[in-house]
Each structure stands twice: as C-alpha cells, then as structure tokens.
C-alpha cells in the first residue's frame, strides 16, 4: 500500500492555508504535527455530545465518556504492540512521561553512584530529569559518544555500561534523524541488569512500533507529534515494573482510599494519573491512531524514506557544499529530519527568509544543546517531514533556500 499524499494533505485543514500570500509549506512536524480533521471531529464530538468527567459518574454520558477515553487507551496500547492496556499511562506530554520514570522508578531504585547512561543525541526532556536526580541523589549521568556521522559510537559499550542501572536513549534523533540501534542497547542494558527507557517521541509517529521488538522497559512518546492534540503524552512500561512503582503525582483517581493519616494507591495505570485526565485529548489521540492505522505505518515510513532520499539528493545537487545537512546519509537508518546550515547564514535569519516564502522550518538548538555543542553549532535550521509532505514541498524549500542565499550574499 502506498500513500496517496494529495488525499492525505486534504485531510489536514491547516495545510490549505496561505502565509504571506503563498501556500504554506509545513516542514516542522518534528516540533509538532498538523492534525487531520478526523481528530478535531472526534474531540468536538466528545465536547458536544458526551462531555462529562470520567470514572466517577453513573449517568449515561459519563459512562460514554469513560468508555470512549478508555477505548483510546486500548487503541494506543495496541498501536505500540502492548499486550496489556494497563501498561499505558496518559501524561501531559512526553516530558512528563520521562519525569514520571525519573521520579517514581528513579527515586525508588537509584542511589548515589548509580549510573544513568544517555546518548549525546538526547532531547532535553531525556537529560534534565536525570540531571535533577544527579543533583538530588548523586547519581552519575554518563554519555554515549557519537561517531563522525552523528550515530552512536558503541565501540566502548561494555565499558560504558559499568555501574549502569538505566540506559535512556532516543529512538530517533530530533536533530539529525539518526536511528540508534535501540534493540542492541536494550539487550546490552538487560545483560548487565539495567533497564532501558526509550524516548519514542520522534519514532512512534513515523515508524511501526512494537515494544516487544524494541525490547525496552519504558517507552515515552507524545500526542501532538503524531497527528494528535496538544496536552497529552504517553508512558508505556512493563506491567511488573509499573506495578512495583510508587505513585508520582497525588490526588483524585490515583487512590483507592484516603484517610486522615494516609492513603492507599490505586492499581496501574490509574495510580499514575492523578486528577481529571485529559479526556478530550485521550479521545483525540485515539482518533489520531485510528487515522494513522488507516493509512498504515509501513506506508507512512516508506513514503518518508523516499521523500528524505529525494530531499538529500535534490538539495545536494542544488547547493553542493554550500548546504550542510547533518546526520547519516543512509535513509534506511534515519528519520525524515534535515538539520541544515546554509553557508554561514544564521539559522534565525535563514528561517526568517524561508518563512517569507511560506516555508516553515525550525531554527535553534532543538532542545538538544549537548548534541549541538558536539556538532559544533549553536543552531541549525531544521526541516522535518511527515506523511502529508511531498516532493513539491522539498522543491519549495530549495527555492526558498536559493532566495535566502541571494538575500544574505555579502
């Protein structure tokens, strides 16, 4: 099955708009994806017909709301190959999902001197929570270095794993698109008795995901990058691990009983979902998964690989050495993320000119400052592709880069 991109594009209302008098060319899905009408419709339907708080109402629309939101949990669990939907915790974003692990699992299981092994590809979301734990508990944060082409350098892995209790890695770099060998890292972690957390924020939206195949223990990802709404993220964790973890946030829903002198926590996943959950957003992410499954994740991936190929090839032809694109060149080992430097034009200036031509790319450090320092840059202009992009978007990017080169040609 291959993707009918024109039809896909038509599903996304925003992509019909213009900016500065030209049709929008949205190349910032790595920051957040656009939303198909089906997702907005599902949320509107919830608000307009069954809006009620969940789990606690015996009346009809409260039951429907409970069923709809818990159905979404099952849908998402199935989407990532989880056998048990109780392994799927809803959070507010991927960042909270990782913090949940750091607070609940981390503060229970890590003590001074224990090591958390990160890769230099990590997003701040998978760095700062461990820095916080380092400050508070004296754990050590250790880094897997990079090869010259921006992949993980695993030559010294045995040595790096010494004393490690958790390996926490991204499955796709949000800067270079690199896809590290997560399965190998998870297996290596397990071999030394460590766990493996995978940041799937840039993976789950783009590649068919199966937590068993990934071999990890925790998987964090975020709704707004996978055609879903803002305000929702997800943590998948192995049931035995979640069952043994203490609560994180305290409040309603996450308890079985509350007394003056203490409380009894609920079972998972609700133990980790304190307060009113993001109900409309759960329904929205369920609809987003339905949408993606309707297209087929293999078709999505195939489309993105061929589009990335096209981009690397045509932009390489047009700009030669003037345009540096970071990351691996083998598109079977990278996602559709193109971090670019055009001569010495600053990313802010470059993206500003691109915007004037309707081309939306992100300029900055992409919340990955350690990686940026490693790459020797403070910022890049990042174009990131998704299922609704096509070759004409890449061509428009090329044309806009041309204009920028002319504008700053001094």
């Amino acid at each position, binding site marked *: 099955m291959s993707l009918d991109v024109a039809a896909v594009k038509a599903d996304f209302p925003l992509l019909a708009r213009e900016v500065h008098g030209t049709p929008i060319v949205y190349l910032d899905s790595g920051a957040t994806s656009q939303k198909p009408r089906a997702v907005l419709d599902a949320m509107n339907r919830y608000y307009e017909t069954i809006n009620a708080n969940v789990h606690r109402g015996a009346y009809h629309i409260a*039951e429907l709301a409970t*069923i709809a939101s818990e159905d979404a949990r099952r849908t998402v669990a199935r989407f990532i190959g989880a056998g*048990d*939907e109780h392994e799927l915790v809803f959070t507010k974003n991927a960042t909270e999902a990782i913090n949940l692990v750091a607070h609940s699992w981390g503060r229970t299981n890590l003590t001074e001197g224990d090591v958390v092994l990160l890769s230099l590809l990590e997003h701040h979301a998978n760095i700062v929570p461990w820095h916080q734990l380092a400050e508070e508990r004296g754990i050590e944060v250790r880094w897997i270095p990079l090869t010259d082409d921006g992949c993980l350098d695993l030559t010294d892995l045995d040595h790096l794993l010494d004393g490690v209790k958790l390996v926490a890695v991204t499955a796709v770099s949000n800067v270079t698109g690199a896809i590290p060998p997560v399965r190998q890292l998870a297996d290596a972690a397990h071999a030394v008795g460590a766990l493996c957390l995978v940041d799937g924020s840039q993976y789950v939206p783009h590649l068919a995901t199966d937590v068993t195949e990934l071999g990890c223990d925790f998987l964090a990802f975020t709704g707004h990058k996978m055609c879903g709404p803002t305000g929702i993220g997800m943590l998948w964790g192995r049931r035995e691990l979640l069952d043994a973890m203490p609560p994180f946030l305290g409040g309603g829903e996450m*308890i079985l009983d509350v007394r003056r002198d203490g409380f009894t926590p609920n079972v*998972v996943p609700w133990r980790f979902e304190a307060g009113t959950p993001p109900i409309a957003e759960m329904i929205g992410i369920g609809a987003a998964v339905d949408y993606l499954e309707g297209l087929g994740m293999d078709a999505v991936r195939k489309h993105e690989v061929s589009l990335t190929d096209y981009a690397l090839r045509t932009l390489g032809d047009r700009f030669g050495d003037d345009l540096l694109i970071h990351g691996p060149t083998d598109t079977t080992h990278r996602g559709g993320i193109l971090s670019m430097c055009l001569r010495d034009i600053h990313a802010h200036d470059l993206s500003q000119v691109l915007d004037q031509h309707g081309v939306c790319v992100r300029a900055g450090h992409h919340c990955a400052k350690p990686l940026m320092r490693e790459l020797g840059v403070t910022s890049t202009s990042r174009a990131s592709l998704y299922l609704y992009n096509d070759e004409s978007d890449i061509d428009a990017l090329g044309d806009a880069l041309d204009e920028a080169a002319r504008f700053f040609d001094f």
Partner: protein
Amino acid sequence: MPGLEDLYREVILDHYRNPRNRGELETPPALMAEGFNPLCGDEVKVYVQLDGDTITDVRISGQGCSISQSSASMMTTVVIGRTIDEARGTLRSFKQMMSIHEHGLDGQDSALDGSTEVPSGLGDLEALRGVVKFPVRIKCATLGWNTFDQALAEADS
C-alpha cells in the same frame, strides 16, 4: 437504550432488601479481606470459613448499593458448601459475564481481547447480566467477588 428494569431485576431487589449471610466471622480461624469501590467509596468485608478445601461459611459486612449488596449476597448462597476450586470456577464464570464491557473500566483483570461469550450455569446470578449494559456499575457487581477472591488468596499464602 437499556432501562432500569434491565438493571434492577426482582431477584436483585430481593437480595438487596433481604441480604443473605450478612455479618462477621472470627478471624482467625476465618479469612477476611476488605475491598473498596474507588468510584463511590463503598467498602465491603468478606469473611470466609474453610474446612480443608471446603468453604463452610461466608459472611459479608459493609455498605453498598443494591447491585453490590445483592451480588455479594447471591455469591454467598452459591459458594457456601463448595470447594475452593469450584468457587473459583464460578468466580471466573461470573467475571467473564461481567467482563464484556469491563475492560478499560477495571484495573484488575481485563484483557485486550475480551471474549463476548456469556457463560451459563450461574443460576440466580444471571439476573446480574443486565449490569453489563451499565459499565460503571460493573465494579459494584464485582466488588464482593474480588474481595472474596482476595480472602481466598490468603489461604494460598
């Protein structure tokens, strides 16, 4: 659209009005477990008296709605005199009947692939079948059973 008569069958109201086997048993020798319905705050205590593998007595204390009270009451009439294994078989059948819509609403025992077959041979208990049309009430219907199961689990440990 399910109506009240689907939920409040006469036999249910009868057990609610006249609950069987209410009370407490001395522990030990009896086993006891305490269950909460986190939705409404209901608390139930189930006492189980064993003689070897045979359940010789069961008592229920605590409060609850008509569904949880009558379900627990009916349960006592079914399991008293049975072996632990037989009682667990009934428990499984009952929970299977309740599980049709339960997945997602109950943290303890639902599976992604909920079977839709309704087991038979539950006698009066089948009056509770209408509860599945009111998913929020399933937790009421299963409260006594899950708590009973917990009490039995103590026998194993």
